[in-house]
């Protein structure tokens, strides 16, 4: 599989279809997978792909320094493909402005499971491929068990739960940096005229930051868990993301990342949207 991947990357660079291949390489020393940017055909031998390669590389596509390298080819896992679909949907990328090398592991994160290239080359084909594998598997009862458990508690218990979780936040913004969809040039947390979010790691600023982070990803989050993986304080960001993803699915019959031609859930409406809560 890895030979096919390297061969494909080499072809893309040699034929000029891509100026840079963004994939995974191995960190010297411990062999941990790290992002690798390959611009020379001979360097493609350094590309690797294992079940440990779970970073969402789509986050590099919107960076100006990466864009300056030229047309990219992206080694894209299913969540990465979903993130690309949302970026295209939100006019941050052109669907034909990059090449996708779809890859997939049977059980991402579990060593020893089989990895393969995904069939399909265009975004639409890969979306269909990813939908076949993931759609309906992400917001299952099991995946939402912790959300449901928290919902079953009283409001005061939920507040206490999040107060304790948010209290640990050191405001490093690793979650934001790891997220392929947090691409705003100026994030609301850095705006200070007026200031919406106090910048110190105090309870108010922390609470507001996490409210904004979750809400700004509502209807957009592709559930890749890059934010939760990046969090050094183990704040359960996936819990907030899944809660809102479920609400978007239940209320608007929409799941992010499966159709780059669909209108985004929070930037569209139906006149028939339910409004039982409005007096």
């Amino acid at each position: 599989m890895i030979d096919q991947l390297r061969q494909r990357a080499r072809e893309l660079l040699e034929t000029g279809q891509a100026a840079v291949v963004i994939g995974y390489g191995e960190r010297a020393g411990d062999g941990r997978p790290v992002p690798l940017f390959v611009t020379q055909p001979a360097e493609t031998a350094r590309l690797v792909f294992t079940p440990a390669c779970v970073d969402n590389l789509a986050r590099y596509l919107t960076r100006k320094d990466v864009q300056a390298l030229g047309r990219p080819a992206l080694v894209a896992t299913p969540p990465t493909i979903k993130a690309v679909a949302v970026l295209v949907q939100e006019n941050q990328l052109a669907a034909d402005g990059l090449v996708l090398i779809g890859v997939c592991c049977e059980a991402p994160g579990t060593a020893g499971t089989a990895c393969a290239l995904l069939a399909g080359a265009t975004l639409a084909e890969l979306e269909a491929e990813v939908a076949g594998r993931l759609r309906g598997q992400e917001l299952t009862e099991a995946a939402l068990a912790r959300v449901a458990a928290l919902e079953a508690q009283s409001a005061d218990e939920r507040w206490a739960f999040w107060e304790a979780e948010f209290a640990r936040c050191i405001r490093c913004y690793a979650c934001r940096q790891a997220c392929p969809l947090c691409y705003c040039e100026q994030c609301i947390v850095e705006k200070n005229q007026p200031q919406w979010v106090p910048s110190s790691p105090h309870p108010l600023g922390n609470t507001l930051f996490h409210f904004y982070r979750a809400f700004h990803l509502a209807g957009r989050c592709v559930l890749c868990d890059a934010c939760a993986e990046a969090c050094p304080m183990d704040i359960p960001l996936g819990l907030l993301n899944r809660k809102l993803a479920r609400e978007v699915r239940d209320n608007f019959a929409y799941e992010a990342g499966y159709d780059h031609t669909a209108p985004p859930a929070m930037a569209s409406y139906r006149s028939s949207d339910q409004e039982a809560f409005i007096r």
Partner: protein
Amino acid sequence: MAVLDQAAGAPAPDAVFEPRITAFVCNWCTYAGADLAGTSRLKYPANIRVIKLTCTGRIAPGFILKAFQEGADGVLVSGCHPGDCHYTSGNYYARRRWTIFRQLLDFAGIDSRRVQFSWVSAAEGRKWSELVGRVTEDVRALGPFSAFHAITRSCTGSEE
């Protein structure tokens, strides 16, 4: 916070709790409706502070959070009925936003009655006055939003 305290007056120890409620309303329907309530001499609780915006589509969720941060115990958001938006569809976008945002607040442990939503047209002065009454009673029953105000104080260091 100090200014708001002044506005609410220093309550006597056993006085009825008077909640502070911020209302974000649209210029074209609810503000006109509230105006009608006034010109019609309809009475409603003075606990509400109305902030007028062009459209409910302009009411970012951050405004609601900011109101709590500044000492509000409850927030009311109101605009044109569906189909009546001055800008055709601002209220439809707002409705989607509120649907998700109130779920986020609820999940975080904020009682849904602290943030209420309604449609009030320019002709519904009576609905406005009754609505303000009901929202005020809801928030009064919930009591001060101590949980949120406590984290606000922890940041600003100000004493209430």
